[in-house]
């Protein structure tokens, strides 16, 4: 075990995958110069040279700024023998290649009756909360959740980032990984060797009995902090990180809500039709009889993203907003506890 940053873990997983399988290649804008920090750079890796030195220019390729062709070519290469990892840098750039994601990556295996295999990983990072303005701050993963045929991953910690990326590279289906730049610097104990984390298995970050809090991506640390604060006030929160959004571990979430009877979901995407909507809908169906309070969503407000950092901060979920939501669903609970404490 060693302590690693989230971004370091991604670099490590990429290096391991490249070393393990000559069919793995990395394509992306400015990957040769390691501009985004995952194709060389960490001290350990630097000793061995950056990825270009280690693996050569045939396998580490700077692309033209042509997202549609990059994504399409990666799909085509995957269909004919390679296992590409595509670094699309900002998640906001995925729109440029939407047709390729939806009509080729997601559909080819199905509509060709299983003839295609499409082992390709698309990495991108959500740069929200960094004063990059409306064109660079999107968190569009819900759009892709609604496209059957794609797998969608949103790691919230270093060890998950490493293990899920390796599973993604192993997958014979297209996987989109949404990283949170806010988390790139966060650290965690990470296994030293190669390991995989299965898709579709949520990680319970904290056990609790009163309220289930589902946190997604950058909202996981906020949810944990909110849970800590609420514990002091006598409300026990169970914090669940689904880790993969497609497949989504609805069983783990439903099981938790059956126990707690209350649900708050926090995510960085816009509220409308987000992952939180999906989770709320599943629970409102499958755990209706256990629900003892309204389901609350804490998501980005349905506005565009202002540049001014103070205004921008108001758009995204905060610990305070999550706390407020937990308070709202556990008001009775809070009352009881307070009363009990008062006695």
């Amino acid at each position, binding site marked *: 075990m060693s302590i690693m940053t989230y971004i370091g873990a991604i670099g490590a997983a990429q290096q391991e995958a490249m070393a393990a399988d000559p*069919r793995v*290649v990395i394509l992306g804008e400015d990957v040769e110069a390691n501009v985004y920090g995952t194709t060389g750079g960490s001290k350990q890796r630097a000793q061995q040279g950056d990825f270009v030195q280690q693996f050569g220019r*045939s*396998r580490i*390729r700077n*692309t*033209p700024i*042509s997202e*549609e*062709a*990059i*994504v*399409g*070519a*990666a*799909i*085509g*290469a*995957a*269909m*004919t*023998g*390679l296992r590409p990892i595509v670094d699309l840098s900002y998640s906001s750039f995925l729109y440029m290649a939407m*047709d*390729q994601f939806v*009509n*080729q990556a997601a559909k*080819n*295996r*199905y*509509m*060709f*009756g*299983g*003839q*295609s*295999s499409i082992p390709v990983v698309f990495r991108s990072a959500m740069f929200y909360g960094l004063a990059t303005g409306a064109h660079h701050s999107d968190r569009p993963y819900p759009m892709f959740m609604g496209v*059957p*045929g794609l*797998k969608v991953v949103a790691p919230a910690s270093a060890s998950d980032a490493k293990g899920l990326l390796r599973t993604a590279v192993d*997958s*014979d*289906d297209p996987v989109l990984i949404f990283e949170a730049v806010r988390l790139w610097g966060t650290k965690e104990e990470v296994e030293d060797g190669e390991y995989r984390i299965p898709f*579709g298995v949520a990680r319970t970050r904290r056990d609790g009995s009163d309220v289930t809090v589902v946190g997604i991506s950058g909202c996981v640390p906020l949810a944990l902090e909110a849970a800590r604060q609420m514990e002091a006030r006598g409300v026990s929160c169970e914090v669940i990180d689904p880790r993969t959004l*497609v*497949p*989504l571990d*609805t069983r783990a979430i439903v099981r938790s809500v059956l126990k707690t009877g209350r649900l708050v979901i926090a995510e960085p995407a816009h509220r409308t039709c987000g992952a939180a909507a999906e989770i709320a809908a599943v629970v409102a169906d499958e755990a209706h009889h256990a629900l003892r309070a309204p389901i609350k969503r804490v998501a980005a407000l349905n506005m565009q993203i202002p540049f001014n950092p103070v205004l921008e901060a108001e758009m995204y979920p905060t610990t305070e907003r999550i706390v407020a939501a937990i308070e709202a669903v556990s008001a009775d609970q809070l009352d009881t506890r307070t009363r009990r404490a008062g006695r």
Partner: protein
Amino acid sequence: MTLSASLDKDLLLEMQRRMLRIRLFDERASKMVKRGFIPGTVHTSIGQEAQVVGACMALAKGDHMTGNHRSHGHPIGMGSPLGPLMAELVGKATGVCKGKGGSLHLADYAVGSLGESGITGSSIPIAVGAGLSAQVMNEKRVALTFFGDGAANQGVLYESMNMASAWKLPVIFLCENNHYALSTPAHTVTGGRIVDRAFGFGMPGIRVENGQDVLEVYDAVAEAVARARRGEGPSLVEVMTYRFREHSEGLRINTDYRDANEREFWLSRDPVALFRAMLIERGIASAAEMDAVEAEIAQEVEDCVAFATESPDPDRSVAFADLYSDAYLLEDVL
């Protein structure tokens, strides 16, 4: 330079066979749409057989091809057997895509057909990817992608041409210029000439003016293929041709978007008839031999219709397979 000069009789007859397969298959498909045996619609390649077959036969085993909505000719040109293709159009379990693709989404990986695309332009970068894997894996194969004069105005083509050029990938961009995109004459929506776009992207552009002559198409594409196989990078080949029928079967629109004289001129240049005459004239085959070939293909098409008709419908479970490589998602999916 004219590589076709060295083609032996077998190959020349095979060209005619494939053109005939496309012609008769599509004529039959058209009727079956009309009678409701084929759900939805189809886009025929009738009139464009030389352009399709000349290009496909310039490829070798192991090469890859992607296509578009005018979709039956491409796999047939690659040598795909007709039965599973026709069964696919009808939506049967024995279809080349198990009845899940349909006319617009034929694919036959056994012959290098990676898939037709209903979205114009969308399969172009897929071919670039096939070229990329060939280069990285050091395999000598090439990839060819078919698209129309209409799709030639989709940006992804130029992203693809540029990438293939910058990386010297073994890709052939083949524009089927049949003068129209649905009801829209190419010249009304195209700035400049498509072939001339090659130069600015650093690759040769070749225009086959007589795209009704299968050998002219073959020669142009074969040269591009040879170049690609030598590692010298991609080419753009624009083939001038004409579709004899309406954009799609059953489409009822005012047909006055086409000029009558133009139409007549092109109808007089039927690639199947022209090649038959040429083979006979050059003494390569007798009229009787050609008749035999035609009868043979007519029978193949009869058989493929019978195969499609007699094949079972796909089982319900088929609809729920092949979305992912693993099955664990299935219950989430339903």
